[in-house]
């Protein structure tokens, strides 16, 4: 057989195998392979991530600048933490006045359990905004679990192996989160941007949105708990001809420097497949 023909046969075989692997991505067999391969690679990835961070710290500015920078970062972190705390307190206050003593956020979430995980790797594709953490089904992590940090919402677990989980960050272009504005009390959808930011879309035209307004999860749809901070409005785009207005949102979480996340394992997302089946079935058997 000629060399070009042999190459074509090899190419064809490998392409068929690859297509079969992609087609079988939902099967449990691939999950077993992923778990087996990730087991030895996980410590190496963790070490490399830790090493990179250590080198980054070493190569920062000279000592006095480093001190100042450290203090500034510490203050920024404190301000961000206080902002989150203020938001939480405002929410409790508003709940108290508006809902006349219906359960506040803390009591609503008292039954939630958390698993803390280290970020061990980032997505190898520059088009996706995912991270991989060192906790999996063995630690109780499930697909759909929300991930948060001390500064706000990080993302959602989209895939999980026995010893690792893949989290889609909120700034991934495919991420869409039901959200509401704290002051304007309007709802919309926060979508990720490839450039790293967020945009809140589908905000009703009549809502008075101002830069600085905080964006929180609304809890609608059941995919995330309500009242987790997502970000802050930086600019508003409103045109009379449009049905909705949109706003650019600066995330409170620094996705590039994520090291530790908390995964809410006690939260069970609402199963919406019933509605999908209902729609696919042409709406038969509607209540």
């Amino acid at each position, binding site marked *: 057989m000629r060399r*070009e023909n*042999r*190459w*074509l046969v*090899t*190419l064809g075989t*490998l*392409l068929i*195998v*690859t*297509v079969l*692997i*992609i087609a079988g*991505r939902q099967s449990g067999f*691939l999950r077993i392979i*992923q778990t087996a*391969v*990730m087991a030895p*690679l996980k410590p*190496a*990835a963790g070490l*490399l*991530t830790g090493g*990179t961070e250590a080198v*980054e710290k070493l190569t920062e500015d000279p000592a006095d600048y480093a001190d100042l920078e450290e203090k500034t970062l510490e203050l920024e972190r404190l301000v961000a933490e206080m902002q989150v705390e203020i938001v939480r307190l405002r929410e409790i206050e508003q709940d108290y006045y508006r809902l006349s003593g219906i359960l506040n956020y803390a009591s609503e979430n008292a039954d939630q359990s958390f698993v803390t995980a280290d970020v*061990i*790797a*980032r*997505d*190898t*594709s*520059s*088009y*996706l905004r*995912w991270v*991989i953490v060192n906790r999996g089904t063995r630690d109780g992590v499930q697909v759909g679990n929300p991930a948060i940090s001390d500064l706000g919402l990080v993302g959602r677990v*989209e*895939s999980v192996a026995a010893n690792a989980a*893949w989290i*889609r960050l909120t700034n*991934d*272009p*495919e991420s869409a989160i039901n959200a509401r504005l704290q002051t304007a009390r309007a709802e919309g959808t926060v979508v990720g941007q*490839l*450039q*790293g930011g967020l945009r809140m879309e589908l905000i009703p035209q009549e809502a008075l949105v101002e830069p600085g307004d905080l964006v929180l999860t609304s809890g609608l749809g059941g995919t995330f708990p309500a009242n987790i901070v997502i970000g802050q409005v930086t600019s508003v785009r409103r045109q009379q001809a449009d049905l909705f207005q949109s706003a650019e949102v600066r995330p409170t979480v620094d996705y*590039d420097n994520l090291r530790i996340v908390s995964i809410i394992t006690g939260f069970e997302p609402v199963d919406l497949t019933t509605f999908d089946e209902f729609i696919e079935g042409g709406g038969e058997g509607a209540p």
Partner: protein
Amino acid sequence: MSLQLGLPLFIVAVLLQATVLPHLRVYGGQPDLVVLLVLAWSTLDQEQEGLAWAFVGGLLLDLFSGTPLGVSSLALLPLAYLIGLLEAQVYRASLLLPLLLTAVGATAYHVIYMLLLRFLTDYPLSWSVSFGYVTLPSVLFDVVLFIPILRLLAHWHDRLHPRQVKI
């Protein structure tokens, strides 16, 4: 490239791509280390090894990604095939040709990858933003890094497959 040498090399490359290289991002682009290794080995080797490493490297890349397993392999395989058909000696003679080859090869990889993402997974990519923000910086990184990687692998390749001369 033997399995004992190639597999650790590709594993290290993927680990670097998932841990160290994201910290070097310019805009949204970073060096595509695995793509560069596949391009370089396909350029040097006249056997079908480039195809095999495109398949393995792609699977390893997708293991550390949110994309379905196999998408990167599917984007790398045609590239490795086409480059493998070309004569390796041409690249030894000129410096410009490998650079041109990398620019075209890496751009083709990104375009195929984006097409697969869009049509296989319905991923909401904006073509203009993706090209300007991710593809272009990544390709520039790749062009800069290709020659050192090619030189390194050429040295390795010559040791593994000494050139035979008829007397």
